[in-house]
């Protein structure tokens, strides 16, 4: 008997016991669907995180330096490094972060104030909704001009437009000259919760003398990691202790984030895979019952000349068909749910082809593996006993 005939026989047998087949498949459906949903959502999440990092500038590099005794890196040193490495660095900007009380006629709250140069917007891929960013004149003349993030704008002006208005930062009066386009969902503590001022002004306001952090932009994303390496060597020469400085590229951060997300997805998919195992045991159970119920059928087939292999194939194919059909339904359910979740959550959740192929293979494989034992039992039945239904 060939495989096609065994397969038709299996379908026939499944159809003749529909309720049982559906209940057996249910485990497989849930298992496969949950693997696909989990992988799909994790993919969507990773993409979302990746794109929000990319918005912050995929070529950007952050550098933090501290004084080590009397060894330090001044602003002048840093700009010298920039001038010496124009082949690697496209732009550089100091980035001084302070928390100051901000107020206008309506409200008063603490906000993040960032002291930056005119190149910062390009480094961090900030786009302006209206007005202008901090410019060279602001830096040079320490002018009281500021550019506000979306969250700060909401807080200060509600639905209104703040351009040209004045606000007080740490008691000093500033004029709003630009509004930055939303980058991170207008939430407190996000990149939207920020007021940009010239760094020279922030140095003055914070009464500090040195600049502790910089943002740089590599000429090309492939140069980001070489630039970090070069920076680290240079900073080590200057400061003499690795504990006092820190440089990292956004791309390395994205890749380590991807690694973490990948591991998380794998762990979750592993948990979902356990349900596939449970489904497999369910299939084995039902196939054992089926073999017992069909002992006489097996006896009849054997008396008519069915060999062990014929009976083995028949039952394995039946188990594989049950689990395979369950797997297909699971894929369908999983894919539909992933697409639905993606639509509802505004996340690019998409079913991955790999997870579909793997879970289908696993489901059929589970049927074969767990169907083998009952099938073997059927194949080894003695025809005389089997005919008597024993």
């Amino acid at each position: 008997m060939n495989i096609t005939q065994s397969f038709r026989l299996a379908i026939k047998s499944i159809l003749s016991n529909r309720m049982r087949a559906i209940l057996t498949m249910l485990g497989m459906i849930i298992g496969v669907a949950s693997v696909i949903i989990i992988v799909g959502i994790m993919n969507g999440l990773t993409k979302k995180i990746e794109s929000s990092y990319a918005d912050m500038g995929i070529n950007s590099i952050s550098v933090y330096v501290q004084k080590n005794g009397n060894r330090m890196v001044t602003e002048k040193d840093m700009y010298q490094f920039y001038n010496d490495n124009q082949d690697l660095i496209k732009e550089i900007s100091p980035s001084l972060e302070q928390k100051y009380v901000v107020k206008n006629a309506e409200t008063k709250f603490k906000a993040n104030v960032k002291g930056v140069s005119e190149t910062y917007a390009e480094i961090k891929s900030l786009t302006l909704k209206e007005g202008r960013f901090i410019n060279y004149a602001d830096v040079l003349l320490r002018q009281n001009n500021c550019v506000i993030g979306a969250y700060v704008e909401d807080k200060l002006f509600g639905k209104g437009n703040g351009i040209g208005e004045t606000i007080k930062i740490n008691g000093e009066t500033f004029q709003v000259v630009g509004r930055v386009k939303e980058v991170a969902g207008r939430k407190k503590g996000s990149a939207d919760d920020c007021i940009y001022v010239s760094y020279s002004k922030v140095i003055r306001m914070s009464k500090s003398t040195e600049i502790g952090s910089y943002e740089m932009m590599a000429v090309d994303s492939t140069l980001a990691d070489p630039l970090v390496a070069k920076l680290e060597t240079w900073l080590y020469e200057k400061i003499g202790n690795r504990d006092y400085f820190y440089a990292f590229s956004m791309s390395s951060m994205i890749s380590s984030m991807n690694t973490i997300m990948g591991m998380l997805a794998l762990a979750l998919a592993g948990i979902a895979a356990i349900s596939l195992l449970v489904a497999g045991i369910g299939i084995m159970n039902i196939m054992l019952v089926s073999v017992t119920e069909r002992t006489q059928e097996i006896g009849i087939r054997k008396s008519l000349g069915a060999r062990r292999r014929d009976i083995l194939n028949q039952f394995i194919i039946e188990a594989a068909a049950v689990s395979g059909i369950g797997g297909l339904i699971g894929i369908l359910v999983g894919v539909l749910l992933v697409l639905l979740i993606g639509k509802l959550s505004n996340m690019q959740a998409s079913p991955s082809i790999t997870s579909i192929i793997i879970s289908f293979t696993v489901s059929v494989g589970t049927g074969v593996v767990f169907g083998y034992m009952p099938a073997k039992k059927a194949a080894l039945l003695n025809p005389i006993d089997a005919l008597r239904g024993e």
Partner: protein
Amino acid sequence: MKSKEVLIELKEVCKYYQIGDEEVRANDGINLTICKGEFVAIIGKSGSGKSTTMNIIGALDVPTSGEYWIQGTNVSHMKDDELATIRNKMVGFIFQQYYLLSKLNVIENVELPLLYAGVDSVNRKERAMQALKEVGLEEKWNKFPKQLSGGQQQRVSIARALAGNPSLILADEPTGALDSKTTKDVLGFLKKLHDKGNTIVLITHDQSVALQAERIVNLMDGKIIFDGDVEEYKSQNQ
């Protein structure tokens, strides 16, 4: 006897079973030769060993000792799958309870031996239909066993036994579940098959059924106590 060609031969066949501490000698030195074209009835009371003999003749089981030859092949020491092939190619079974598969329709049931013989689907259908014609059930080919009467089901099982064109038709109490009228019909069929040259071995406990055969083999306690033609049997048992 229409021909002298030997079809099956049992030489000193013994079959012992261990039941608890007791050894049961179901067959205890059976010597039996059946030639092509014979119609033999094996009779005996329950426990006489006739079912065991049938199992060995039908290649469902192998003897504990002794030899069993069918068409020049020694079956005595065959493995499971080899026995399956012998059953498939050489033996057509007719059982008391018909043993039709309820989920398959009539023609699919008849096709089964051909399926396991690896006959392709077109030939299979053709040969199965031919076998159904011989038992007069060709219009019922797409019915399910449940939709047929007992006599019709037994005729389907006869068609199934014929489909593979076996050397031997082995009928185990074929009329045991039938009323007297259908018993007559079924026996009529077996006679017709015999007239066409088929070799038939009939196992029964019913004397009136056995008397339809040409030759009678009577078993008791695992031994043959009579082997001769019907007339001889009749004269001894009157």
